[in-house]
């Protein structure tokens, strides 16, 4: 082994990592910068991180004079329902798919994969036509159902994959001690699957929290808007309210980005073992 080669390899590694990290972070610093600009500087060609005379005006206006808080409540409501439904259904059905053999299991698993190939309009268009007929446009029921169905296949695979890594001897021991199937599942296995449950919850939540295209078709009344629709409204076709848009984006992103980063350790073990096998 030649020493100088090693040093070059190390410098090269850090250089590439540094460039990649800088590129990853840069767009986010732009959002921060623009959200802090005073009104007269929104169309500025400055690239400074902290603008001259920086101000929190955009945040104040956003929270007091726009529908932002309303949209946030709407988004929270939709996302929480989707998360609870998604976790409940994926954790139970994933368990059955991991532990038991039954007729149609293989085609069920494959069928779930096939749904991932549907283009957005495949379900949206029929549901839209049905919602028009039922006069159910502008209701959350339709959107919650679509989001749950979108998130579910991935989550079921993810849970199944994780259960596969837990040895079945654990339930057998519990069963010998007199536990029922249900007890063995909820008291022994479910707690062990906590990391996968967390990932499943995160994915379901993000599906609903971040969705624009479906909401854009189903929700038309501004007061019913979820956050993505509201934020897109600031980027109108005539003029863009960059300050409000940036401030809103930051407030929307901080909680999901924080959650995602905190949970990223689980992603590396939980995701590879689970979903990726699919």
């Amino acid at each position, binding site marked *: 082994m030649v020493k100088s080669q090693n040093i070059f390899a190390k410098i090269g590694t850090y250089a590439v990592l540094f460039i990649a990290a800088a590129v990853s972070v840069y767009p986010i610093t732009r959002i921060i910068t623009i959200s802090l600009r005073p009104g007269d500087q929104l169309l500025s060609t400055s690239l400074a991180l902290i603008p001259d005379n920086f101000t929190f005006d955009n945040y104040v206006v956003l929270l007091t004079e726009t529908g932002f808080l309303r949209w946030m409540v709407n988004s929270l409501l939709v996302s929480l329902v989707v998360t609870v439904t998604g976790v409940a259904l994926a954790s139970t059905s994933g368990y059955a798919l991991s532990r038991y053999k039954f007729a149609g299991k293989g085609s069920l698993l494959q069928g779930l994969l096939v749904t991932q190939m549907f283009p957005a309009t495949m379900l949206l268009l029929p549901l839209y036509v049905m919602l028009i007929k039922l006069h159910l446009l502008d209701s959350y029921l339709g959107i919650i159902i679509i989001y749950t169905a979108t998130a579910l296949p991935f989550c079921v695979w993810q849970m199944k994959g994780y259960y596969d890594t837990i040895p079945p001897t654990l339930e057998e021991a519990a069963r010998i001690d007199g536990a029922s199937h249900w007890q063995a599942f909820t008291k022994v296995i479910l707690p062990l699957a906590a990391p996968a449950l967390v990932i499943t919850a995160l994915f379901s939540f993000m599906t609903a929290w971040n969705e624009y*295209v479906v909401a854009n078709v189903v929700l038309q009344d501004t007061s019913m808007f979820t956050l993505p629709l509201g934020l897109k409204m600031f980027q109108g076709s005539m003029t863009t309210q960059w300050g409000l848009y940036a401030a809103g984006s930051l407030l929307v992103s901080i909680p999901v980005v924080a959650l995602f980063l905190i949970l990223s350790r689980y992603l590396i073990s939980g995701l590879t073992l689970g979903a990726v096998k*699919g």
Partner: protein
Amino acid sequence: MVTSKNEKAALRIFIALLIGPMVVLVLAVVAYPFFFNVILSLSNMNLFHIRDWEVIGFEQYLAVFAEPRFWEILLKTLIWTLTNVVFHVVIGVMLAVLLNQLFVVGKPAWRVLLILPWALPQYITALTWRGMFNYEYGAINLVLTKYMNLPAVEWLTSPFEAFLAAILTNIWLGFPFMMVIALGGLQSIPAELYEAADADGASAWHKFRHITLPLLRPVMLPAITLGVVWTFNNINVMWLVSNGGEPNDQTHILVSFVYEAAFSAYRFGWAAALSMVIFAILFLFTAVFLNRTKATEAAY
């Protein structure tokens, strides 16, 4: 032995209870609309026939294939998918291999920084990059003109550049997924293999080529399959970066094209037929690709 029969029945009920609700929901909200979509694709439903529509056969499919823009946008979609997935995998695997080296300090911190593009909501990424591509005030042109002395690029107003802008945006947000998958795969490669290779005096490239790549393959192939399907169908980035196909309805992939046909032009039957075509393309690709590579072998 009397109990064993009851036990079996009880177990069957238990399984049905676990799996039933999921199956019912998926059947109701995925299977039913799917079949409805099949019927729509055989119908003449559009803005003028929204209530009095009828099944007319395969006309809409013929109309899809007869539409010159379909072939043009199919080609764009293939370029879009291939470019994105290749860059995602190459960048993702490269960063994972670099990050996995023993001497790298601060691994969790690097990982967090590199995962950021995945964590940011996709529509915010797309809208933010649209802002960064702005001709006069966008950061990209400012960096090009101020620091690199290059001419400003008309990112969002010319078709080729707008398409490129969408690809750049999507490459940015997609590589962390592949990196995370590759990191997981790298952790399961036993260190002894590398030690043995070192003892034989193998070069870094040899170790990568003959140990890392073959052992990453089974982990990456399913991820690549998912990546292709997701990228092919990624309407968010294309639609939001190009603000619905600007300029002049040129900047489309199939899925944004069909979204526009359905919800701006209200050509419901035609859009349903095109949806079926997109689905068929992806279904065939997945079947062939998975069969060729035996990627799901370990899954059942």
